Structures are given as C-alpha cells and as structure tokens.
C-alpha cells in the first residue's frame, strides 16, 4: 500500500516537528503524574491572580493542565475587609471535566513551598466554590451555576487549604462531562480563594516568599 507509506511519511515529518516543539515547550520545574486517558479528563480551565498592592504573586498551570503552582511574596499584615480588595489577594482557577464520564474527587496533592516560613502561621484564607458548566472560548459559561459553599465561605489558614477543601462539599460533588468547578464567586472572573496576612502578625513575616503546588486527583463515579 504505497498510499499508506506516503501517509506514514507525512506523519513521520509531523512527529519530528512535534518533538522539536515539545522540547521547546517542556516545563522543567513541575512534575506531573495523573493518568489522562481522554475518556476521563479533568483539567485546569483557567488560572489567574489578583495581587494586593506592592506585593508579588504568580499562579501557573503545568503543561498538562493538572498542576497549579502559586507563589507570593512581600506580603504585609492587613485588616481584612470583604468590600476592599486591596486588603487581600485573590487566586482563582477552574477545574473542567473534559472527558466523557462522571467523576468524583479522589484526593488532593498539596505541597507547600518554603514550609518553614513563619508567614504561614498568619496567612488566612477564605474560599467560595461554585459548580457550573465549562467556559466557552469567549469566557462565558452555559447555563447557571450553583454554590457549593453557600453564603458563608470556608475560612481557615492557607497552609491547610487541602484539608479545608476535602472537608467541604467538594469532596462529595459529582462532576458530569461538560461541568466545571471554580473557586470563587458566581462569575468565574470575580473573587476566588482569597489570602491575606493577619493584621496582628509580627515582623518575622516580612520579606517572606511562600507558595504551594496543588493538584486534584479524580476517580470514576458510577454509583
């Protein structure tokens, strides 16, 4: 079948080019380990950050869209005010079920960056979780969303983020194909996982760089 060989030659050229592209894109600083079969595929849809004034902060998703890496620095004590977004930082991201089967959360891999930093003791967090449909390329969602945390957000220390999430309704939610979970307000673009330094923290929390890596592992749900 000479047509088959011609087709194979084209594919070989494409694969060689893919290799060059992959070498260019590879992310050298994160490790990934989630099985992605296509039938089951829950990936990060978007991830962004709003930093408090005069602080640093980044949020990145890994190449395979499974691992989130957050870092922040130069944080300072503030008196948290729900209506004043200069008193807290916001990170928000979504998890989208792009596969074909319903899934449920199995566990969360959560690792602190610079765990010895005294800043972790005074770093507070407030979390809202919503469930809805995946976002379209224009940023809009289809249909309505539903809050998993109600009117009262989850409150605690940012260093206990995984425990807080596993203790919430997130642990029991069934995510259907085409559905998404996002951390924040009803509008995916608005407030999310908030973080701030307790106003009573001491000088030892100054000039600290902290962060975490976060990965959600899912399992098939077919009860």
């Amino acid at each position, binding site marked *: 079948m000479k047509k088959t060989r011609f087709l194979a030659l084209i594919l070989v050229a494409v694969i060689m080019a893919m290799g060059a592209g992959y070498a260019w894109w590879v992310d050298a600083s994160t490790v990934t380990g989630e099985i992605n079969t296509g039938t089951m*595929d829950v990936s990060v849809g978007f991830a962004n950050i709003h930093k408090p004034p005069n602080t640093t902060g980044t949020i990145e998703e890994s190449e395979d869209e499974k691992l989130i890496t957050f870092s922040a620095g130069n944080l300072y004590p503030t008196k948290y005010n729900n209506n004043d977004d200069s008193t807290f930082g916001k990170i928000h991201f979504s998890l989208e079920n792009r596969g074909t089967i319903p899934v449920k959360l199995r566990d969360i891999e959560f690792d602190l960056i610079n765990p010895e930093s005294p800043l972790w003791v005074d770093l507070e967090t407030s979390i809202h979780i919503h469930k809805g449909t995946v976002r379209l390329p224009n940023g809009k969602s289809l249909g309505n969303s539903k809050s998993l945390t109600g009117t009262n957000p989850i409150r605690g220390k940012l260093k206990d983020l995984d425990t807080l999430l596993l203790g919430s309704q997130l642990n029991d939610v069934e995510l259907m194909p085409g559905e998404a979970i996002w951390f924040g307000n009803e509008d995916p673009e608005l407030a999310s996982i908030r973080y701030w330094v307790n106003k009573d923290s001491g000088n030892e929390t100054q000039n600290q760089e902290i962060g975490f890596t976060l990965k959600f592992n899912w399992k098939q749900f*077919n009860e």
Partner: protein
Amino acid sequence: MTVNYLPTKRSNIKRILVIAAIIGIYLVENSPVKGFVKGSTFTYIIMPVSWILVIFIWKMTRKIRPMTKIKHKRSLKFWASYFGLMYIVINMLGGLVDGFGRSPYNHTIGGIIVNVIFVGTALVGRECLRGTLINSGRKQENIILFILVALLMTVVKYPITRYMTIRTVEGLIQFAAQHFLPNLTNSIFASYLVFVGGPLTSVIYLGMIEAFIWISPILPNLKWITSAFIGIMSPIFFMMFFSELPLSQESRQRKKEKYEDSTLSWVITTVVSIGLIWFAVGVFPVYPSVIATGSMKPIINPGDIILVKKITNTRDMEDIKEGDIIQFRKDSILISHRIIGIEKVGGGNIQFITKGDNNKEIDWEPVSSQNVKGMVKHILPKIGWPTLLIKGNRDIDIEKMGFK
C-alpha cells in the same frame, strides 16, 4: 456450518442513514436532554440501552460481506487480537520510560461489570455502524473512505465541550497530538480491519485496547509527546504489516510486486530517524550540546559534545553538589562550568557559584536554580566539530562568558 451472505450492493441510502444515526446519537449525548435525568443514569443506563438497540437493528438488516473469504476469518481474528496486544505492549514499554500511574476507573466487581457494559455496547454499536459505512461500497480498497469514516468516528468520540475548551494554539496541538490523531489512526486501522474482515475484527482489536485501559489497575503515565508518538505510529505500522498478510487475492497480488525495502526495515529506519531527531532537539531526558570554547579544558575541549541530563524537578536540583559540571543559561547562550560553591538565598532558593576549569577567575554572576538546564554526564570528544564549522563562532559573544 455455512453462513450465507448476500452479494455486496452499493447503498447510499443506507450510508446516509448510518451517518445520520451516528450524528444523532452524538447530538443526544451532548444535548441538554441528559440534564433531565441523573448524570450517571444517562451515561450508564440510557446510552448502553441505545447502543443495544442500534446493534439489534443492525443485526436484523441485510449482512454485507467483507472482502476476505470465510476460510480466513479465524486468521483475521488472530491477527486483530495480536495487534491489539502489541498496542498494549508498546504502551506499557512507554510506561517503563515515562512511568506508571493509578488507573482512575472503578475496579470494584460491580464497577467493572458496569464499565464492560457501558464501553462494550458503545464499541460494538459503533463498529457495526462502521461496518455498514465501509462495506456498503465497492469491493476495492478505498483509503479516502477509510479516512473519512475514521474522521467521523473520531470527531464523535469527544464531547462538544472538549472542543470548546481548546483556547490556545498550544492546547489545540497538544489535544490533536495526544488524543485526536492517535484515535484517528486507530480508527483508520479499524476501518481497514472492518473492510477486510467485518465489524468483529475491529471489535476484537479495539476491544482489547479498551479492556486494558478500563480493567488494568495501573496504566502507563505517558507524556503527551510519547503518547502521540506511540498512538499515531503504532496503528500505521500495524496496517502496513496487516496489508502484507496473504489473506486475499488483492494482498497476494501486492506481494508479487517488488519493493526495494521490506516493511520491517522501513519501520526500523523510521523509528530510528525520529529517535535521532528527537534526541538532537532535546525531547529526551538526556540531550547533546556542542562545546565552542576552551573554558573547561582539558576535560572538555572545543568541538566536544557533552551529554546533559535535564534537571526537571526539585529532587534533581537537590542532588547537585560541588564539583559537578552543570549547563546553565546566561542571556541567550548555554554555558557549561563546574560548581565550586552552593549558596542559599531568600525564599528557600539556591544559587551556584561556577568557574570554568581553564579560567583564572570564578564566573562573576552566581547561577540561579531557574537558569540551570542540566548536569553534564558524559563527554564525546571531537565529534561536534562539523557543527562548529557550520555555525562558526559568530553567535558566541566571549564577553558574555563571565570572565573577570
């Protein structure tokens, strides 16, 4: 026992009906209709029942004879299962390189039974429809038809929301390489199997692969590039091998033609070529790099090629110690120097003090961990001179090498 098949007749109406059925089922699967029932009820009860109905209707209609004679059926089934097994083995070999992970699927007895029904009915139903599409035409091989049918079957494999979540060019390429193209080539091979031996042959091939994915407690955790390579090339090679099996008069005629090289040697050449190109551009954990200057003489001389092991995680970074030779990026060039000191800086990060063995002074700027590309593992003397001759030294600014 003899089975009577009716003569193959072209039937465009049947094809149109089958295409409509495939698209109709796809639209129902992706419609708001399923919102009226509990999600898992729709996925694990309604859809399997629908596929069983499709199979029943297919069974009641006129059977279409595939290309191969009945006496070769057993051999076809053997080869279909053999290639299915090969696909699994190749993926597991990929797992030896990239690692394994836990399967996300339900492995309780009840879960396995549900999955077998849920996956099996859809698989058999789709292959029956594929069989009608492929064999409702002429008896001659038609690669364009195989590709078109495979394209349709691949497009409907992914939910509409999956396509909606492709928001960047990189995302599109990764989805195409890791998922779409491997499924497409598998589907092309399945179309060919259906053409030669009917739907049962492709059910055996695809069924073995699906059974492994859904039942195995561990699965290879392949990088998307590995998954793309294995997924795309394996079915194509299978098809080339399969086409040379003496199962039909057409295949026997092809064997009489003189090829300059056998399929096996072509496969080997292709795999080696791809491997060499990927090695050169840095896909693998170890990559080559040509040395242009004499800052590391006498251990490393200009024209030598060093093999560098990539630093990809914090554990690799922690293994670096004084005395190791690392390759790091400084502005737009790569430098390979020895570590003579390691310092901890704020935020838990580290930086390296480096010096070329042949330099009098240490490099004036410490190297941060983010700029470290890898650790030099081996040196291949002199074989990099052709690269130096081609590139010359015009890209290298000696002032940037960090001499005091």
